[in-house]
């Protein structure tokens, strides 16, 4: 019955979604989804378009509330946390089945994690499991006995995870991170060795998952269709019959598809169109906070940016209000600190204050009154119109406010990343999008020797405080430590925060249950289409 109904839905590329066997109109949601997904293996991908689809195909241990993404029971109906907060015991639901009808067992979770951590499999996301005892050593090949790693299936319905250090926000990670999703290892083995990425198990007709939907069609660069999974534990809640994901890279093309009714939801909107939609179709426009920060990264080993006073002077002399009002124009919020406001109940109190006067004073104190004698600073950005516009605006602000001259250098994305990772830059535009909803995500980057701390800035006090935050007794105590970290960052300015991201896109008003969330994640089982 299902397949007959969906064959019909698949054939209607344009308007109208067909009807089910019972005559009820089919609920088919059509989403513009950015780039073509690299793969649909949760352990072999890193991008947002992939995660959007995987969210429909695989369920996680812990689910996310559709309003604010706080952790709610998922595949696990409950969990216990040991007194030392190192051992998490998850109790799986009794009615869990893969989309082929076979039961989901705790042992499959363990096997999935083993696959992710197997060195030969070479997962780019394996580091996300390193918080578990022995996981990092196993991933590096220093430990070969997986039974010594902290994943245990106590029985078919009980999974125990032992951490090597406390992670107070582990449940928040589990709620939104797909690396923790179990895989149907028996199905995978049918198509080749578990430690290969090229076995083709994720193709349509083969992929078996645990999510509210299952893969029906994958036509590369055209569309991916997922349909309701009858074996899903919470199938009664699912109202959509199918979701069609359209890989559309170009924002203008996507907007045109939205206007002809080919799409219900776009992944982005050309920023030049925001004003038009505000005026003509405000009911379709979404401008929502997005948990990311746009900033300039200083290489603190290169003069003159090795002097914190100069970095801070530069940070103070940026007119962020004007920048977000006149240059970026997507409803972004100016950023006067590194951490995102209202993230899991945390808002940084630290703030870049003092303005241009303080900036001039600091610059003079550093030996360059009015910018005199200061060599030009080179700003690196990846080739993209928006980054160039922002760079030119800030270049003008620094010249006007401080007399500091800046030259711009743009590079193709991969060359730019290479320059970043080899520290071949003075000042570089950058952005950081959070994986999970906790302020820790923005603060952990700046500890010494973090692989992503390309500023080369190092502060033992910062490192100590961040480590101690993991052992804080309460969330309030932990957030108090983060306040200290944020004030250190604002003082030292290894990075110059510019603005907090927003996501701007369009949604057809008939889509219901698509609430704004900071990570732009929308669990599909709560979404439906309004027919009236």
């Amino acid at each position, binding site marked *: 019955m299902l397949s007959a109904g969906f064959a019909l839905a698949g054939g209607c*590329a*344009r308007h109208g979604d067909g009807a089910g066997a019972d005559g009820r109109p089919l609920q088919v949601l059509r989403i513009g989804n950015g780039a*073509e997904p*690299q*793969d*649909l*293996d949760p352990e*072999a991908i*890193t991008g947002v378009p992939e995660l959007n689809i995987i969210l429909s195909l695989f369920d996680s241990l812990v689910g996310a509330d559709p309003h604010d993404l706080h952790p709610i029971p998922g595949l696990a109906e409950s969990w216990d946390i040991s007194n030392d907060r190192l051992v998490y015991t998850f109790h799986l639901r009794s009615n869990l089945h893969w989309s082929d009808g076979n039961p989901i067992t705790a042992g499959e979770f363990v096997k999935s994690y083993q696959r992710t951590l197997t*060195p*030969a*499999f*070479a*997962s*780019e996301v*394996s*580091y996300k499991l390193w918080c578990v005892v022995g996981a990092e050593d196993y*991933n*590096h090949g220093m430990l070969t006995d997986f039974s010594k790693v902290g994943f245990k299936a106590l029985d078919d319905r009980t999974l125990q995870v032992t951490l090597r250090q406390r992670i107070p926000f582990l449940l928040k990670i589990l709620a939104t991170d797909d690396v923790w999703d179990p895989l149907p290892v028996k199905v995978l083995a049918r198509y080749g060795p578990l430690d290969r*990425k*090229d*076995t*083709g198990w*994720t*193709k349509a007709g083969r992929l078996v998952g645990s999510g509210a939907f299952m893969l029906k069609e994958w*036509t*590369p*660069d*055209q*569309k991916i269709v997922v349909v309701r999974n009858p074996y899903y534990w919470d199938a009664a809640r699912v109202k959509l019959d199918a979701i069609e994901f*359209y*890989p*559309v*890279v*170009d924002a*203008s*093309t996507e907007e*045109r*598809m939205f*206007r*002809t009714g*080919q799409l219900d939801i776009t992944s982005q909107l050309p920023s030049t169109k925001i004003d038009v939609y505000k005026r003509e179709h405000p009911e379709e426009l979404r401008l929502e906070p997005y948990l990311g920060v746009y900033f300039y990264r200083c290489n603190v080993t290169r003069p003159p940016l090795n002097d914190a006073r100069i970095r801070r002077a530069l940070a103070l002399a940026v007119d962020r209000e004007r920048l977000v009002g006149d240059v970026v124009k997507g409803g972004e919020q100016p950023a006067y600190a590194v951490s995102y406001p209202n993230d899991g109940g945390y808002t940084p109190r630290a703030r870049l204050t003092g303005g241009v006067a303080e900036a001039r004073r600091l610059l003079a104190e550093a030996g360059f009154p009015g910018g005199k004698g200061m060599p030009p600073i080179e700003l690196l950005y990846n080739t993209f119109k928006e980054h160039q516009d922002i760079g030119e605006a800030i270049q003008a602000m620094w010249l006007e406010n401080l007399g500091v001259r800046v030259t711009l250098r743009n590079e*193709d*994305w*991969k*060359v730019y*990343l*290479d*320059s970043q*990772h080899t520290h071949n830059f003075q000042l570089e535009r950058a*952005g950081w999008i959070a994986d999970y909803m906790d302020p820790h995500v923005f603060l952990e980057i700046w500890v010494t020797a973090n*692989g*992503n701390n*390309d500023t080369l800035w190092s502060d033992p006090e910062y490192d100590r405080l961040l480590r101690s935050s993991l052992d804080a007794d309460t969330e309030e105590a932990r957030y108090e430590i983060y306040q200290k970290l944020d004030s250190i960052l604002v003082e030292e300015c290894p990075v110059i925060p510019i603005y907090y991201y927003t996501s701007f896109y369009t949604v057809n008003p008939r889509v219901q249950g698509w609430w704004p969330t900071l990570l732009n994640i929308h669990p599909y089982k709560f979404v439906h289409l309004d027919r009236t």
Partner: protein
Amino acid sequence: MFRFIGYRLLQAIPVMLIIITGTFFMQRFVPGGPFTAEKAVTPEVLRNLNAYYHLDDPLWKQYRDYLWDLCPKAFHPGALTQGLDLKQAFGIDFRPSFKYPNRTVNEIIADKLPVSLELGFYSLLIALAVGLPLGVLAAVRRNTWIDYLCSSLAMTGICVPTFVLGPILVLLLAIHAGWFNASGWYSPIDRILPSLTLGSVYAAYIARLSRGGLLEIMSQDFIRTARAKGATETRVIFKHALRGGLLPVVSFLGPAIAGILTGSFVIETIFQIPGLGREFVNSAFNRDYTLVLGTVILYAALIVGMNLVVDVVQVWLNPKLKFE
């Protein structure tokens, strides 16, 4: 003629080898690699990745192994009817893609080349059906309003870029008139707008070239002789002039067909078409080494092949040339 073709095919071997070698090594010397990402991978993970893709072998060994995989090791042209997989048909293995770990470059080409071929075929038809008559008409009615109209149309076609024409067509015919999808490659009707957009540019070039070629021929002695002998104007144009007048168009069509068939980055992006043109460009940005090589080799082979066809056709069209 067969000796000529055989000789040219032999010449193609070193040409292809130079292209493959150049591409193989050049892309390795560009900064950044397939695994360079915004969130840095740790050195240990990078080591695992390099081992998985054999990037930890010495470069000469990688080159040797790649060349060996490229060598045809089978001959089952019948398999091509099942799909364009060159591995099945000739044992040519372009290896897995770096960007799409689950797919091989052979599969990507087999999926996308037919789409580009189809789009290219329609566009060429449009280009020839529109461009040739315009060019001939302009040449025959030289310096009349017909010539000015045809020439202006052609000039406009050359000047208006596809990324302007495409969205305008969509705006008028898809969004306002509602006759078409704004983009996609789902049903036969979706072929129309992209083919029109891509075809119009080539039509404009063909009109300009055929007008120029025809005018040059029309001023030659043998045309005057034909007219003196009392041939009708129609016969002069179609029997005597057109054959020589088309030579510049034929020379242009060789590389143009190779380009049009391997897909257009701009058209495929505007209309969201699953063709090879986007892979060709994006693979370079992604440092997808195997996909870059696969598409470059395919493109080079098409250009070499089309140039050969052009040379043969030119000898056939131009009595002054011989196979030598």
